[in-house]
C-alpha cells in the first residue's frame, strides 16, 4: 500500500478510511501553514479527535462559515466531498476572486468527519451504521442519532425515544460529545454567520425548521438563497434539487442541527442532502464523488458569497 505523499497525489476519486482522512488533514495543514490550521474541538465517545480545519487569512475572531460533513457515518460521499472541499479551498484561494474575497474577510471551519466513531465502525464492522457509538445504559442497542440530539424541540415528534431506533434522540439534548463539542465551539466562537451541515442522499437543500411548522423569521431570504444555490448546483451536471424548510420538504424532525444553529442566531443555517442516482442510495459509486463535490461546491459558494455580501 502506498501512502499519498501530498494532497496533490491524494486520490479524491475513491473512498478512504478514517486514518487516511486524518493524514490528509495533516498534510493539508503542513502544505498550507499560512492558510490552514487544525483545531481539535473535542473527543468522540471512543476517544477519537474531533478535528476541524480552519481556513483563515488572519485577523482575530473574524465572522465565519461552518461546514460539516459525515454526521451520519454511513453517508460516505459526504466525508469524501468534505475532503475535496478542503483541497478546493486551498487551490482556489488567490485564484478564484469570489472565494478569495470570502477568505479575505471571513474564516471557514470545516469538520470533515463529524462522527468518527461511527465512520470507523462503517469501515470495520457494519457499513450501514449511522449513529454514534456510545452505549445506552439498560439497552443492548448502541448509539444516538446525532441529528436528533440538539436542543431544538428536543424530544418532540420526528425523533425516537427508543434506543434501538436509527433516529434515537438520546437521553438528553447534547448528550453526545460529537454534538456537544460543536455546540461549545459555536457558542464560544460567537461570530458564525453561516452553518451548513451536509448529509446524503435525496437531493435537497433545506433550512429550518424541522421541529415546528412555524416558519422562521428569515424564511423568504433563506428560500430565495436556496433557490439560487440549487440553480448554481444544477448548472454543472443538471442535478435537480428540491428545497424548502425541513418540515415541509421531508418530514417533521425534532432536535436537528440547523434548527439549533438558527435559534442561536445563525441566520444562514442550511442542510444538504447530496446526490441520489436512484440506484444506489448513499452507497454511491466512488466515481461519483468528485462530480458530487464539484456541483455541491457551486451551491456552497452561492451561500458563502451571499453571507459575505449580506452582513448582519
Amino acid at each position, binding site marked *: 500500500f*502506498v501512502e499519498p505523499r501530498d494532497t496533490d497525489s491524494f486520490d479524491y476519486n475513491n*473512498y478512504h478510511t478514517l486514518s487516511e482522512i486524518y493524514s490528509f488533514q495533516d498534510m493539508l495543514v503542513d502544505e498550507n501553514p499560512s492558510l490552514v490550521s487544525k483545531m481539535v474541538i473535542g473527543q468522540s465517545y471512543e476517544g477519537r479527535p474531533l478535528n476541524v480545519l480552519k481556513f483563515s487569512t488572519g485577523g482575530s475572531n473574524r465572522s465565519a462559515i461552518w461546514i460539516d460533513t459525515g454526521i451520519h457515518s454511513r453517508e460516505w460521499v459526504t466525508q469524501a466531498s468534505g475532503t475535496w472541499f478542503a483541497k478546493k479551498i486551498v487551490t482556489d484561494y488567490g485564484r478564484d476572486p469570489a472565494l478569495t474575497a470570502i477568505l479575505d474577510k471571513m474564516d471557514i471551519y470545516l469538520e470533515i468527519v463529524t462522527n468518527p466513531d461511527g465512520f470507523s465502525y462503517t469501515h470495520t464492522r*457494519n*457499513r450501514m451504521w449511522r449513529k454514534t457509538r456510545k452505549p445506552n445504559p439498560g439497552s443492548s442497542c448502541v448509539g444516538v442519532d446525532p441529528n436528533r440530539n440538539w436542543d431544538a424541540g428536543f424530544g418532540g415528534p420526528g425523533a425516537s425515544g427508543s434506543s434501538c431506533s436509527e433516529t434515537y434522540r438520546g437521553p438528553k439534548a447534547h448528550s453526545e460529545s460529537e454534538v456537544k463539542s460543536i455546540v461549545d465551539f459555536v457558542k464560544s466562537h460567537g461570530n458564525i454567520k453561516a452553518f451548513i451541515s451536509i448529509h446524503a442522499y435525496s437531493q435537497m437543500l433545506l433550512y429550518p425548521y424541522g421541529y415546528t411548522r412555524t416558519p422562521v423569521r428569515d424564511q423568504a431570504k433563506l428560500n430565495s438563497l436556496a433557490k439560487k444555490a440549487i440553480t448554481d448546483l444544477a448548472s454543472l451536471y443538471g442535478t435537480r434539487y428540491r428545497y424548502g424548510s425541513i418540515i415541509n420538504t421531508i418530514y417533521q424532525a425534532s432536535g436537528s442541527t440547523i434548527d439549533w444553529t438558527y435559534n442561536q442566531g445563525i441566520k444562514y443555517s442550511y442542510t444538504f442532502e447530496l446526490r441520489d442516482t436512484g440506484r444506489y442510495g448513499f452507497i454511491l*459509486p466512488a466515481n461519483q464523488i468528485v462530480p458530487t463535490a464539484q456541483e455541491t461546491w457551486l451551491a456552497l459558494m452561492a451561500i458563502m458569497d451571499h453571507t459575505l455580501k449580506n452582513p448582519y
Partner: protein
Amino acid sequence: KETFVGDQVLRIVAKDVVQLALIKDLEDMVELELDVWMGVTDVASPVDIRVPFYNLQSVKIYLESQNIEFSIMIEDLQMLLDEEQEKMELAAR
C-alpha cells in the same frame, strides 16, 4: 463483521395518502428490522427501505396485498458493498 447478504433496498412509491399511511405503518413494524433510508414524505417522493433477507417475503407480501408499487433498487446489498471494498483496496495499492 456484519454482512448484508441477500438484503435488498426497495424503492416504494405511494399512489395516494392512504398508501402513504400504509407505508408509514410498515416503517413502524419493528419486528421486520427495516432500515429506512428515505422515509415517508409525500406522494411525489419515493420511500427507500433496506429489508433484511429473512424478512423480504413478509414485506413484499404486505406491499403486494395493499397494491403498493415498488421496485428493487438494490438487488443484493452485500454484492455492492463487496464491489465498494474491492475498489477501495485496488485504489489503495
